[in-house]
């Protein structure tokens, strides 16, 4: 039993959230995870069950161990490079300024590192709707319009006409696309190992699981599917698995 193209793509999409994995390593792990899933399916589990089990078993530290074996050297080279730049600054400044100059290179060392980290996880920053629509519900605790109980509203709602295009808020890959209980037709995009965004109550879905998405690309249209009382877009930004306030990530 061998997974079909669509199933393989779903596993690949899962692995792609670990952006530090280079393509050859990811391909090798893809085969490994597929084998594991096929093994479980051979014991009578469905693909969905086997995939969930495989994801649970697959913790992040395992991936880190694999990636560190080849990445350590690269990071070392980068660090040495930065240090060399720092040291050359010391020799440049020290004859004229003396002791105070030694504090300066420290900053030149620290800054590139910070800049690099910030670069590595660019949060999704586009607005998922083109025009300015009315924001009908903000992120935070609220009385739920249907259950009437106070719960955390995990995202923001914009009231928008049926069929209004919904755009991806950043580059990424489609992790989920389809009907999802209360969310109705729903898309989840993986941007990197930190950020995911979720678009709910859609009328139509224009993308498939595993597809590469560019920020600003249309992925579906506004609808009223799932637990919804009128056509609107529910948009969530999920950081490290926890929904955060999308207002902080909007232009």
């Amino acid at each position, binding site marked *: 039993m*061998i*997974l*079909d*193209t669509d199933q*393989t*793509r779903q596993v*690949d999409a899962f692995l792609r959230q670990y952006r530090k994995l280079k393509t050859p*390593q990811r*391909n*090798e*792990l*893809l*085969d*490994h995870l*597929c*084998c*594991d899933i096929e*093994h479980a399916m051979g014991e009578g589990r469905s693909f969905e069950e086997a995939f969930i089990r495989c994801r649970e078993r697959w913790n992040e*530290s*395992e*991936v*880190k*161990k*694999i990636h*560190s*074996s*080849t990445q350590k050297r690269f990071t070392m080279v980068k660090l040495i490079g930065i240090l060399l730049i720092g040291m050359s600054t010391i020799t440049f400044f020290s004859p004229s300024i003396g002791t105070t100059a030694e504090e300066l290179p420290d900053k030149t060392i620290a800054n590139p590192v910070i800049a690099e980290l910030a670069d590595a996880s660019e949060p999704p920053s586009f607005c998922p709707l083109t025009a300015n629509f009315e924001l009908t519900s903000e992120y935070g605790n609220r009385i739920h319009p249907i259950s009437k109980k106070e719960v955390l509203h995990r995202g923001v709602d914009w009231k928008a006409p049926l069929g209004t295009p919904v755009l991806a808020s950043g580059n990424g890959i489609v992790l989920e696309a389809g009907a999802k209980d209360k969310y109705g037709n729903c898309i989840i995009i993986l941007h990197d190992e930190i950020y995911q965004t979720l678009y709910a109550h859609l009328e139509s879905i224009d993308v498939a699981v595993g597809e590469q998405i560019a920020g600003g690309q249309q992925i579906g249209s506004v609808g009223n599917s799932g637990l919804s009382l009128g056509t609107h877009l529910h948009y969530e930004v999920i950081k490290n698995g926890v929904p955060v306030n999308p207002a902080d990530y909007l232009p």
Partner: protein
Amino acid sequence: MYSTELFKGTLKTLVLHLLQAEGRMYGYQITQRVRALTDGELELTEGALYPTLHKLEKAGLIISEKEKVGGRVRKYYLLSDIGTASATDYVDEFRDFVLTMNRIFKLKLD
């Protein structure tokens, strides 16, 4: 499960020995083979196996071949000429090590 401390030093030898015995193998197959040979006592995790394979490949002891399987590519590993020559040395060294250790531990092995 055994402590990683104990396990670590024998990983290279274990992989080389398996490849010598079985010829060509891919990652998942190695983990399954180890599980079967040890009746599930030894769980070779991906995080331990793949870095070992990559190190051995880099050192030129093993080489790899790629093959398409369904919608993905499978990477097979096999011993290089140097690997074939040194696999036996690794196993011999391990054997001597165990015997020497046993002079201290005096384990009843049966």
